[in-house]
């Protein structure tokens, strides 16, 4: 669905670019309501992979404040589910709480993230890992004609898989380049729900596009990672992109706070994902 929104946004931008050849921007002074909230912000994730799990916890600040967001220290953080509780500790004193042990989350088990801050307040979030179908293969094409807007060469990465029948699957895709997360900002990550593709064989579905200069070496190893996400995460991502990316400029809609699955006025998200991936070797300019 975010693709549809993207296409429409793209088309509207082109439409208005033609209409508004003289539109410009200028920096202005705006007096914001600086009684800013000092909310707890959580970025935590549990997956079905046997690994260390983390929770990044910090605080919100005033909009124009020129500083990094302050980490939340000395909190007690646990993830529990299926009669097990895992402690997460802030070893480096930087607000990043990491599980003491490696563990793998289980499919269809509800997990609870619980955070008790130094001042004794407790915040919780719940999420459940849903099963993810396998990927058949990942391919790419180096082409200058797939997007009709220009004649630039790009790398188009395609996914091939069977989407299982039954509505209610939500997918998230990430790309790793040479072992590192390449889609490291939220708006680069692709996600979709299966309302319009339910039960279909997905063949040559273009998930990512890399510009010509984004592949610097021959035989670059790319990993396409696909995760199942919850509906709440899908909604959270849509609302975050609305606020941070899409809802700008000419066709601004009424802004609203990003959704969350955290309780008691905290913001951010506790994500639960089952992950599969496939590796691809990309040749330079071919």
């Amino acid at each position, binding site marked *: 669905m975010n693709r*549809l929104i993207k*296409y*429409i946004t793209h*088309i*509207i931008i082109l*439409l*208005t670019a033609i*209409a*508004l050849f003289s*539109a*410009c*921007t*200028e*920096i*202005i002074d*705006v007096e*914001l309501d600086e009684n*800013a909230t000092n909310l707890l*912000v959580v*970025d935590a994730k549990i997956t079905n992979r046997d690994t260390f799990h983390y929770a990044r916890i*910090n605080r*919100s*600040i*005033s*909009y124009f404040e*020129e*500083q990094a*967001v302050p980490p939340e220290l000395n909190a007690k953080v646990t993830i529990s589910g299926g009669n097990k509780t895992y402690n997460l500790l802030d070893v480096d004193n930087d607000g990043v709480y990491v599980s003491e042990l490696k563990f793998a989350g289980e499919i269809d088990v509800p997990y609870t993230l619980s955070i008790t801050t130094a001042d004794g307040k407790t915040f919780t979030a719940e999420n459940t890992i849903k099963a993810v179908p396998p990927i058949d293969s990942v391919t790419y094409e180096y082409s200058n004609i*797939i997007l*009709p*807007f220009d004649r630039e060469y790009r790398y188009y990465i395609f996914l091939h898989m069977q989407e299982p029948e039954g509505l209610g699957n939500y997918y998230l895709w990430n790309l790793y380049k040479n072992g590192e997360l390449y889609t*490291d*900002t*939220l708006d680069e*990550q692709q996600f979709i729900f299966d309302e*319009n*593709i339910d039960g*279909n064989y997905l*063949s*040559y579905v*273009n998930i990512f596009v890399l510009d010509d200069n984004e592949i610097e070496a021959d035989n670059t190893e790319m990993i396409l990672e696909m995760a199942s996400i919850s509906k709440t995460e899908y*909604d959270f991502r*849509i*609302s*975050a992109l609305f606020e*941070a*990316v899409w809802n*700008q*400029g*000419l*066709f*601004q*809609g*009424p*802004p609203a*706070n*990003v*959704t969350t699955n955290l309780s008691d006025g905290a*913001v*951010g998200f506790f994500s639960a994902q089952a992950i599969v991936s496939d590796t691809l070797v990309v040749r330079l300019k071919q």
Partner: protein
Amino acid sequence: MKHLTITLFLLFTIIFSYGQKYTLSGHIKDSETGEELIGAAIFVERLNTGASTNVYGFYSLTLPKGEYTIRATYLGYDAYIKQIKLHENTNFDFRLSASSEKIEEVLVTGEKSDKNITDVEMSTTKLQMKVIEKIPALLGEVDLIKTIQLLPGVQNSGEGSTGFYVRGGGVDQNLVLLDEATVFNASHLGGLFSVFNSDAIKDVKLYKGGIPAEFGGRLSSVLDVRMNDGNQKQLSGSGGIGILSSRLTLEGPIIKDKTTFLVAGRRTYADIFFPLSNNYSVQNSIAYFYDLNLKINHTISDKDRIFVSGYFGKDVVAFGSDDVRFDYGNRTFTTRWNHLFSPKLFSNFSFIYSKYDYGIKTPPGVTQFEWTSYIENFSLKNHYTAYLLPDFTLKFGADATYHTFLPGKMENTSDEAVFNNLELPLSHAIESAVFAGAENKIGSRLKVQYGLRFSLFNNIGEGSMYEYNKTNPKEYTVADSLHFDKGEIFNTYYAFEPRFGINLTLNSSTSIKASYNRMAQYIHLASNTMSATPLDLWFPSSPNVKPQMADQIAAGLFKNFNDNAFETSVEVYYKWMNNMVDFRDHASLLGNPRVEGELRFGEGKAYGAEFLVKKPVGKFTGWISYTWSRTLRNIPDIYDGWYPASYDKPHDVSVVLSYQLYPRLNVSANWIYSSGAPRTMPAGRFEYGNLRLPLYTTRNGIRLPDYHRADLSVTFEGKNYDKPKKRFHSSWNLSVYNIYDRHNAYSVSFVEDKNNPEIYNAEKLYLFSILPSLTWNFNF
């Protein structure tokens, strides 16, 4: 209905035959073109009474047997005085000549009307194209909606936009009619220009309040636009060449004095130059809009006339050989039959078709699809006007409209499509109404207008709907889904809509007026954005969506000075609105089969005071208006408490001046000031996934910077300006938009500083710097 008509008809016949009275009726026309004049006045000097022409230029006046001096007047025309001996029912057409305002000594004969004092009508403005054409225009495109935005009580929806808000009502609460057909989206180029080609338009009237019973279906206003009928005397034309578009209108008789035609076209031509670009994407782009107006009218006899008119317009943006495409447009078609049952009973039957649609085609590949959406309606109207006595006019009639909505259809164009085709079910509804309204004079000082409209709305199958579980106001879940068979009426709403107006004339130049109206609105517009986008999604009331209702009271003081040379008025209004439609946060409106689950409802209130000083005739014309107003909303499921609507701009000033400097040279200028529109802006921020996300504490709590702008235009007439015998006339118009280059904020976004990613700046988007344009206009 027919039964009622006959009964009433008999009743009138009885009333009419009482006493020795005869009816003078006919049309008031432009002597040169034969074009009927709407709202022209006739005045019987001895009896101190009069009438005015209806939208077909027809008047009817019943007087005791006798000899009268009758004066027909119309703004911008010389008065026509005629002695008439009335000893039988008489048909007479007045033919008025346009006053040549440019020649000073004729100035006095230009109409100085006191209509604004004597009419019951308030909160209403009638604009003539002659006035609109002189106002400086963006890119030289004369635009009647932008002129309307300069009137008191009307706000624009953003820089250069043709969306308008009347007395706190939303863009979708304006009923925009072109020859009686609803225009669902009156904009081109994403809202910068309106669909009305000024050359094809005869008359424009905006009702902000005191809306007569014959209109209904929208809460806030009626914009009644009438097309030219076509020159009855000879083939004539007009047109213009501007930097954005060119226009050409041809009109003339098919059979002299009986049948006329009008064809008017307008098209932009920027895309003709695209292939010259060396940029691939520009070279392969298509972008244009066009309008086509067609009209034929035929006079069968003194008693019967037929009008057929149509409008077709489209905006197209495409890439490559139609690989990617976006288009939208309106189509309207109106057939009308005027019939005089007697000189006192005027009737009109209309058949009206109207459609708005848009389509999107996404880039090629397995995910390519075409998206379409439309709203379509068929209407029948049967309206009567009975001129019972000079001081008593009765209007009554019935309307019925069949609506069809296609919220969206997604069709794959690829053989190996991965998307399923999706068709959101069509929905159908019938909106009907009966009304009666009367105007009469009580004594010499008091005039009252009263009416009642009964409106009825039925959802009709085939259709389907969801029932929702509303325990979580942030997100409704589907509780049940229902299906209805073809022809099954599955939901009914109705409303009694009283309308009332009163005029107390204190003296020949002063009156006090008051009005009340209730309006019901059964179809609604879903839009996520604050500007006019073409992606309009209209949807009907249903078991989940109650009709919107508004009550408005208004009162005003009207006073003319200097023998009606200056008109002034003060009006105050208060409006309550119920069942206002809004959307939950981050609502998904496009392609969503459960769009009703995204709706949230609440109430609205709007109040204000409007001040106007106007000089309608003379060398120096124009107006100054000031409006103070507030518009507030309360949608409990979205925000706790009352908050200002996104177009709540308390102070609004318009100065519109036009001066005939020399007979061939007209200079016009306007200045606009309004408070900045309120927006929701962040108080705090947090980070997630390397994105900076905002935190909001209030809704529409911070205002954009104040808006102000001045425009100037100079019109230079060609040398044939004062030689009516020479057929070809031309003029040059130089318009300068935003002459002191104010960078008005259209919107504010928050962006990372280019040098320091830790710092965020507020950045305004402004659409236009100083923007001159040149247009050459002609007529023959």
